[in-house]
């Protein structure tokens, strides 16, 4: 550690002017130092200020924010004191950024080639004629197939993983000494995420760069960082080597965060972290975490603890860090409720096939070929009280199937029945009672709740529609339902904008349960939420299952979440079923090659567990015309048979089925 740090942040406070005119701090006294060749991870829940720190390292603050105190140095000089010209030279040059959502961070009207060339022209002294070759070189370096083709594409013509790679190539164009990564893999499939992280690790080692990773995903941090900083309410609460922080964190918040992450290998539901973080400016004079802390004593509430070494290599902001170990005993995740194997049928999908693009009369007249089916041959029988998880990468048709069950997207073939009675395919043809019995909860509560309806209005809709309640009775029932999702009557008058992400999703779940449904369709309902909130949602769903015996169809790209809640799991690839069976069997040793690929790519929040990357990370827009849908990416592909013949179902004990040509003993 002889060399001075490349990026150093000292006592940085950032804030904005609130409505009352008072200054509201977003960051409070943050210190950070990263040297060449080092990688630092910043973790925390949304609103903890982690992205603000990363952007501040570039001397950039979002509109409305301003620096209150402290300094941010890059290469020895304060970024906020530099002139615009100096900043333009550093940003994208020595200091590169890989943004959170690269799909939205690439200019939609410019071709990929031009966007990368722009960075080259600004930051590299090389003749114009060499630019194209260099762009191709960079695209190849981030392992994009067909760089010549990609170069001429527009951003929206690429998949999420490809866009992320382009963003990395663009950051590398300036030959940076340091890279800032703001949630570089959030929103990507597990397989793509694992590939991108491996790429970043290799690049960092190759070029001896300093890296700052911002992520809420501890699995990502475990994979790529040596040092971790945990942030809470705009403060750093714990900093230390990755192994220490992730395996035995000495701060109660970090411990709670870690416990709230579902693990692939565990049967228990994760433990939710109670309460919510303070809004900016809300934190009082004591420790910001004290209201949610199981160890808090009077001292914690009166005087904020200082950052102090714990003697084992960590810096921690807690008076009671020595007693943190005792917290674990009190926390034990509840077991998911299992369904009764003899219960009757709830939802039955029979050979459902779905197609998004309907062929118009003009296309038919012009002789265009019929479009490929998005989803084909899905047959799943779900028992009452059972939870079936649907997993697969994006584009695997998981959400499409839910839409069809909800009646929003009529299938082109197959039938759906509810409790042994056929269910009309279109939502308009369903009787009110049929509508009531199937409810859908969407991924993003920001979009699924009407921002101008109060919580009372939102809950009143199903109650009025299905039960004809009004007046005092309606209010009474609404409050009851609100209490089942652990929100009180005082939430009734609030608008969705006044709720946190977790509270919004609770309201959305409450709305679905207000109808007393038999089947609840959950479309990625936890993926927009922080892990701690996600754990609380899973507990809530499990409780409804216990009390009411609700049947769930649970769609998620997160295999650990699906494992935590489901009785059975169905694995989908390109809208085709690859494997279905009880959780233990599917997550067990015998599985479809695709399931194996997915499971191996999952990142665990443990630096000692490395993902195994098998299948090539190629994007397929449509399944092959014949043979096994997974043929092009399968690491265990047999000869021609996989290309030509649709694989057979191989049945194993316990209703475990795998669709593969491999002989049963090899699976």
């Amino acid at each position, binding site marked *: 550690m002889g060399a001075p740090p490349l990026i150093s942040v000292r006592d940085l406070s950032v804030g904005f002017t609130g409505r009352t005119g008072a200054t509201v701090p977003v960051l409070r006294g943050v210190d950070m130092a990263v040297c060449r060749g080092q990688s630092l991870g910043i973790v925390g829940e949304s609103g903890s200020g982690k992205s603000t720190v990363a*952007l501040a390292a*570039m001397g*950039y603050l979002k*509109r409305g924010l301003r620096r209150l105190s402290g300094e941010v140095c890059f290469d020895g000089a304060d970024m906020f004191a530099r002139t*615009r010209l100096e*900043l*333009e*030279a*550093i*940003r*994208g*040059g020595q200091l590169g*950024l890989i*943004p*959170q*959502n690269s799909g*939205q*961070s*690439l*200019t*939609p*009207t*410019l071709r990929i080639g031009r966007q990368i060339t*722009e*960075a080259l022209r*600004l*930051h590299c002294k090389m003749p114009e004629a060499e630019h194209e070759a260099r762009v191709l070189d960079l695209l190849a370096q981030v392992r994009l197939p067909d760089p010549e083709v990609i170069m001429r594409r*527009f951003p*929206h*013509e690429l998949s999420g993983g490809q866009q992320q790679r382009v*963003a990395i190539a*663009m950051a590398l164009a*300036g030959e940076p000494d340091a890279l800032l990564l703001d949630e570089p893999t959030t929103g990507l499939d597990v397989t793509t995420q694992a590939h991108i992280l491996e790429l970043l690790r290799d690049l960092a080692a190759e070029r001896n760069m300093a890296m700052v990773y911002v992520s809420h995903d501890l699995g990502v941090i475990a994979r790529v960082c040596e040092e971790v900083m945990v942030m809470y309410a705009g403060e750093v609460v714990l900093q230390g080597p990755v192994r220490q922080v992730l395996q035995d964190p000495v701060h109660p918040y970090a411990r709670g965060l870690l416990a709230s992450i579902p693990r692939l290998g565990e049967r228990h539901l994760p433990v939710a972290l109670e309460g919510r973080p303070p809004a900016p400016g809300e934190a009082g004079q004591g420790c910001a975490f004290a209201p949610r802390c199981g160890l808090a004593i009077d001292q914690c509430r009166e005087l904020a603890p200082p950052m102090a070494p714990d003697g084992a290599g960590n810096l921690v902001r807690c008076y009671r860090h020595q007693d943190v170990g005792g917290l674990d005993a009190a926390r034990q995740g509840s077991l998911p409720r299992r369904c009764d194997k003899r219960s009757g049928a709830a939802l039955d999908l029979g050979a459902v096939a779905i197609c998004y*693009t309907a062929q*118009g009369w*003009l*296309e038919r007249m*012009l002789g*265009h070929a019929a479009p490929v089916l998005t989803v084909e041959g899905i047959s799943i029988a779900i028992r009452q009280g059972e939870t079936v998880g649907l997993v697969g990468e994006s584009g695997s048709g998981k959400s499409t199937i839910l839409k069809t069950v909800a009646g929003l997207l009529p299938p082109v073939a197959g039938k759906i029945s509810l409790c042994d009675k056929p269910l009309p395919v279109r939502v308009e043809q369903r009787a009110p009672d049929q509508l009531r019995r199937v409810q859908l909860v969407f991924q993003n509560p920001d979009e699924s709740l009407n921002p101008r309806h109060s919580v009372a209005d939102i809950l009143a809709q199903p109650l009025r529609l299905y039960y004809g309640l009004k007046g005092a009775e309606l209010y009474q029932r609404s409050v009851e339902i609100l209490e089942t999702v652990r929100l009180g009557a005082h939430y009734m008058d609030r608008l969705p904008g006044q709720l946190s992400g977790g509270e919004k999703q609770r309201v959305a779940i409450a709305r679905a349960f207000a109808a007393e449904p038999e089947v609840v369709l959950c479309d990625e309902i936890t993926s927009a939420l922080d892990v701690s909130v996600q754990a609380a949602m899973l507990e809530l769903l499990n409780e409804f299952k216990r009390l009411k015996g609700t049947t769930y169809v649970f769609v998620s790209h997160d295999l650990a979440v699906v494992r935590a809640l489901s009785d059975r799991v169905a694995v989908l690839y390109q809208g085709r079923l690859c494997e279905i069976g009880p959780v233990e069997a599917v997550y067990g040793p015998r599985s479809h090659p695709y399931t194996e690929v997915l499971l191996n790519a999952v990142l665990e929040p443990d630096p000692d567990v490395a993902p195994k990357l098998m299948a090539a990370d190629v994007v397929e827009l449509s399944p092959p015309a014949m043979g096994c849908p997974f043929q092009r990416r399968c690491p265990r592909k047999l000869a021609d048979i996989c290309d030509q013949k649709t694989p057979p179902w191989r049945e194993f004990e316990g209703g475990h089925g795998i669709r593969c040509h491999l002989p049963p003993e090899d699976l």
Partner: protein
Amino acid sequence: MISMLIRRLLLGVVTVWIVSVIIFAGVEMLPGDACTAFLERDAKGEMLAHCREAQGLNQPPVERYLSWAAGAIQGDFGTSMSGDQSISEMVGLRVKLSLMLAMGALIGGVPLAIFLGVVTGIWRDRPLDVFLSTGAIFAMTIPEFISATILILIFSIWLGWVPGIVITPADAPVLDFFPEFILPIVVLGMVMTAHIMRMVRTSVIEVMASDYVQMATLKGVPFRQIVFRHVLPNALLPAINVVALTVAWLLGGVVVVEMVFNYPGLGRMMVDAISDRDLPVVQAIAMIVATTYVCVNLTADVMTMILNPRLRTLYMRAK
């Protein structure tokens, strides 16, 4: 992409056809007919019979619609009630004059509006933006006849720079209208500029706050290059449709402004035809305005499609 074009074109044709049926049926449903309306008290005996003969009103409505529509397709809208002039000729003259007014307002107004919209959008909430945006709201909300009157008062009565009223007859060569057309163009241009400017401003603000502009800033792209390369192409796309609507509005004849300045454009002709109860002329103008709207909107949609890579691939893929 081709199939999409064909589809839109067919849809446009169908729209114009439906409009023609509605216009024809509407006129047909009025009590009396074109001749009784036009002749008023004289509508009796030989005069009425003669008029009906001349206008072909003795045939059944369906037949009349067909021959009217067939004529309209070839640009022949029959003869007017007063003076038995060819309607196409009369209207053609006025269309030319309206077009001149519209072109003048567009050539001056659109670039100015885009420039002001970008400037106010980029430096939002600064004094310049507050000043210009407030001005735009005034320009949009003050009725045209008031702004026209004020301009006449200032520029032709007090300063005496330009004439305040048009006295050149409609059939004079186009250039004879200079400098009479300056004030009408300024009045129209003001309203139009204000509308487009506010639209562009909103759109620029939205794009400036986007992730890709933040990314460009953090990539070290100089400010001017961010504006021209990253902001403008994206911010101007939604403006195309607003410009199209304005163009259609201008071409459709701007009755009030034409009345105030006594400008012999399409709008005034329409008003005259209505007060003369010259129904064939009213029909013809209504058809021309409807067709203009359809064409201009179609052009705008196709342009948006060509300039927006996202839509372009969408339709390419649909092919």
